[in-house]
């Protein structure tokens, strides 16, 4: 009897220690860990979501580690349409690939090289004429192309097709593809994929195999051996390649049509794109922009920042600057300063607006982006290419934001 009492006391003691430890380690946030993405529940059977620590601080005093880099201002816009050789003016995406520009339109892949356009269609091996996404693997140089009906690997001029019938691709509607050496990540309407180019193995992440709320994935990117998945209605999933575990970022207030506290976590669950750069995760949604530096979130809406629209189709990030494709112009943001680019109705001129806190400077430019509805963009060095719903636009850096401007 005495022994049993001792055992019982010991068990109580261990249990108490475990609870204390659990509370201690989970005080900052709750991490949802899944076993290699193969199980939809934790050991306790709960798929808990992460909620970032709520810190309502003054946004403007916060700056990134690399914010000292000057914020570029683009201009000298040059527009390309069907008259210049594009197969269509509906330009979904654009990618700079060393000496050439890869352009995804709804009527094929257009490649600008040596001032010559070459058009590729399904007759050449393209999976579908409507090209939605393009990425280039830096290691191999292989181009990955997501279309409305399958995925292509375009390697040294040869198209290889992957679809849901001949491969492990989750679905043929490929919204975004991200090539990262060994792994290629794919966002589809029925989940995200990881394709191991070394072993030809496919892994599917969806509501059955991951803590994904819904399998409709609009955006995906990979960096530092992690992948970030923008799941429409499900926030952002971060997948760790080393551990095979997930973290989930969701909108803490859970409201569909309003944002109570923009900085309380991911600004909205209707996510459309993700970008990772210099330790910062940028998330585009149809209800604003989210930024996460690994410790806290910031949310950005259009009524109190320089953001021209909360309806953001895509986000890219480079050198600590986020590039946002909105339905009302091209936006750039470095965490402090906004520079936005738009058209002016009834004019060939464009407008560039620089905003920092309360300060705003509007510049009228001789040239403008081809259309204010932006689908995507890509930047390299001092050049930006912008995919719009009417034409493709090229811009170059014409200056940098400094205090004298504002």
């Amino acid at each position, binding site marked *: 009897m005495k022994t049993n009492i001792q055992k019982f006391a010991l068990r109580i003691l261990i249990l108490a220690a475990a609870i204390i430890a659990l509370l201690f380690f989970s005080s900052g946030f709750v991490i949802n860990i899944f076993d290699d993405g193969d199980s939809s529940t934790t050991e306790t059977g709960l798929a808990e979501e992460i909620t970032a620590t709520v810190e309502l601080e003054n946004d403007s005093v916060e700056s990134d580690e690399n914010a000292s880099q000057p914020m570029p201002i683009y201009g000298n816009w040059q527009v390309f349409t069907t008259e210049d050789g594009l197969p269509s003016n509906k330009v979904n995406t654009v990618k700079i690939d060393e000496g050439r520009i890869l352009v995804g339109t709804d009527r094929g892949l257009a490649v600008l090289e040596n001032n010559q356009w070459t058009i590729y269609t399904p007759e050449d091996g393209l999976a579908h004429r409507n090209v939605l996404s393009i990425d280039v693997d830096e290691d191999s140089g292989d181009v990955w192309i997501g279309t409305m009906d399958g995925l292509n690997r375009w390697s040294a001029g040869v198209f290889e097709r992957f679809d849901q019938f001949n491969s492990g691709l*989750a679905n043929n509607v490929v919204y975004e593809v991200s090539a990262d050496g060994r792994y290629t990540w794919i966002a589809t309407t029925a989940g995200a994929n990881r394709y191991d180019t*070394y072993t030809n193995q496919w892994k599917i992440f969806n509501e059955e195999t991951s803590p994904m709320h819904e399998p409709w994935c609009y955006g995906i990117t990979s960096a530092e051996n992690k992948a970030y998945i923008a799941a429409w209605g499900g926030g952002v999933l971060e997948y760790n390649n080393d551990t095979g575990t997930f973290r989930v970022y969701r909108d803490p207030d859970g409201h569909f049509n309003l944002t109570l506290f923009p900085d309380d976590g991911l600004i909205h669950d209707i996510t459309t794109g993700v970008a990772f750069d210099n330790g910062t995760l940028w998330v585009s949604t149809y209800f604003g922009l989210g930024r996460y530096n690994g410790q806290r979130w910031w949310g950005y809406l259009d009524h109190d920042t320089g953001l021209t629209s909360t309806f953001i189709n895509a986000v890219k990030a480079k050198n600590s600057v986020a590039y946002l494709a909105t339905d009302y112009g091209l936006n750039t943001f470095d965490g402090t300063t906004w520079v936005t680019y738009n058209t002016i109705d009834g004019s060939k001129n464009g407008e560039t607006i620089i905003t920092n806190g309360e300060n705003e400077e509007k510049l009228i430019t001789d040239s403008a982006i081809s259309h204010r509805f932006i689908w995507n963009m890509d930047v390299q060095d001092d050049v930006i290419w912008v995919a719009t719903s009417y034409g493709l636009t090229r811009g170059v850096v014409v200056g940098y934001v400094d205090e004298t401007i504002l």
Partner: protein
Amino acid sequence: MKMSNRLIILLILGVLLFLMGYRGYNWSLDHYEYMTIGQVTGDIANDREAKIAALKCMSCHTYTQRDGFFLQFAEKDYTSPYNLAVSSDNRRLFVTGQESNALYIVDLASDRIISKIPVGDYPHSVAVSRDGQKAYVTNQWSNSVSVVDVDNGTAGKTIKTGGGPAGLVLDHDEEFLYVANTYTSDISVIDLNQGVESKRLRAGNYPTGINISPDGRQVLAVSQRSVLVEYRDPPKTEITVIDAGTRRVRQRIHFEEAHIMEKVDFSPSGDLAFTTLVRPKNLVPAVQVESGWMMTFALGVISLETGSMYQLPLDEPNMFYADPFDVRITPDGKQAFISHSGGDYISVLDIDKVREVIQQIDEGLILNAENDLMLSEAYITKRIPTGSNPKGMVMSPDGNRLYIAERLTDRIGVLNTQTLELERMITMSSADQQALLRRGQQLFNNSGRTFQNQYSCYSCHPNDHEDGLTYDMDFYPGEDLSNVQTLRELAGTSPFKWNGNNVSIYMQCGMRFSTFVTRTEAFSPEDLNALVGYITSQIQHPPNLYRGPGEELTEAQRRGKELFERTRTNDGRMIAEIDQCITCHPPPHFTDRLKHDVGTATDRDNHTEFLTPHLNNIYESAPYLHDGRANTLEELWTIYNDDDLHGVANDMTKDQLNDLIEYLLSIGSAEYYK
């Protein structure tokens, strides 16, 4: 004596008496005839007793069992030299011993082996640094490169590669090593300063040969198998061109209607690249073999200046030179040497004549060159017979000697390139090259038993496997197409062929074979014994790439296994036993050895039922189905299983199908399931 022992002795005596008695003797003859029908011809064709004297019971019941009693006494001490390299001072020859898992260093002054260095499994090729201090050996079954310290005679560091590393080449600065990974169809780029694989580039299907241009600017990798083409399209096989500066694939070019490109070499001026290739005629009935139309062998020439590609026949109108393997060019760019591993010959080509022919093709003076077997007399100057199965070759730096790996005679032939005479042999082992199984191996790789030496077993079954093609084996075009199947781990899995008509390998390789396929005299009983013994006794699958020996299944594989063995659909309905995967595909070979109608027959097939194929290392056997219609495993269920006749699978989600395929990929050698 125990009662049980007495009963066993009585049983044995009973069987012996039965066999010795009239009825038992006749039963034995009937059994023998059933299992070996038609394979013995000539004077004794109608003499049952004479036949049984020729083909002994022991043939089936000892040698043809992998772990049979007599097999342990079979000769196993072979070196099987496969590929070679020579030091820049021409003092040392480096030889990979494919069956001894070793690298041999031969002193060329004395022709003696001075070092035997254990490396990984199934070493394929070797490259040597310019200073002769380091040798790099690809271990095809260990998925690695061994870095050998030549002076110490030891293999030190091992560098991981992709699956099945084969050919390899150093870049000119000796900073990067390019390795062609056959089984994963890619190229490992190894950073030698870091000692690790830095990246992997997609190649053609089953790349094996790889070489770097004389200016060091581009690397070419040639492939064995055709890329997956549309059903009934002719094969086309990739040459992958890598920019050695960016270490990226710059170009993918294809030889049309060709495959099995084993090696590649450059003219010293760097304007031409040469590769060996096979031109299969798999889309027309194989009966045309008597018209010289089963397959031909050619030299592939690529103009690196114009991008033009040429296929120049190596055969003659009435004589074929099967299975060209290696090609080497003299430093003066005047002669090329090609080893015919199926014909046991070296062909000598005059490159100036090759250039003339190419020019005439360009000018339109020669049409249909690839099929004009008369053309070879214009550039082939000599055929030099060799020992069995000449494979890799290497030229001495001065170009005066050509070293030839005679794989199945365990010798290195030394050819004087001036006199074109074989001047000496370097013996690599003392093993008996006439032992039964070795003899079978030689026969398997030799084209001497086919009409006009057109092809060997190897031609359609390279590396004892299959060539990824579907052949038209009926008299009428397009009927009864036959997807070539692997010959690995066949012992004890009769019957054979897609229609299951051959109850033994004896039957498969016997008279029927000569009637329908080789169109020549059948194998003699002695040769048939040896050939069947080889096929059924030795051939193994390479280690599975998705699940190593003793490894646990991954989560996805485990889930896939549950699906493979499931008895209910997702909505809980019972699946009839015959519609469960495991029913027709039980381990260890994952075949029930029966025929089934899985709804894949077409109106061009004479059968609706097909023999259940093995699933061991099934990932190496694309395309799939009896006629090679399915390019991937996924297509078996997403496209060709509308009515759930090939197992109930239409209720599966995409995740489940992916899991099922993960499990199928993990099915390795039958050894692990016994």
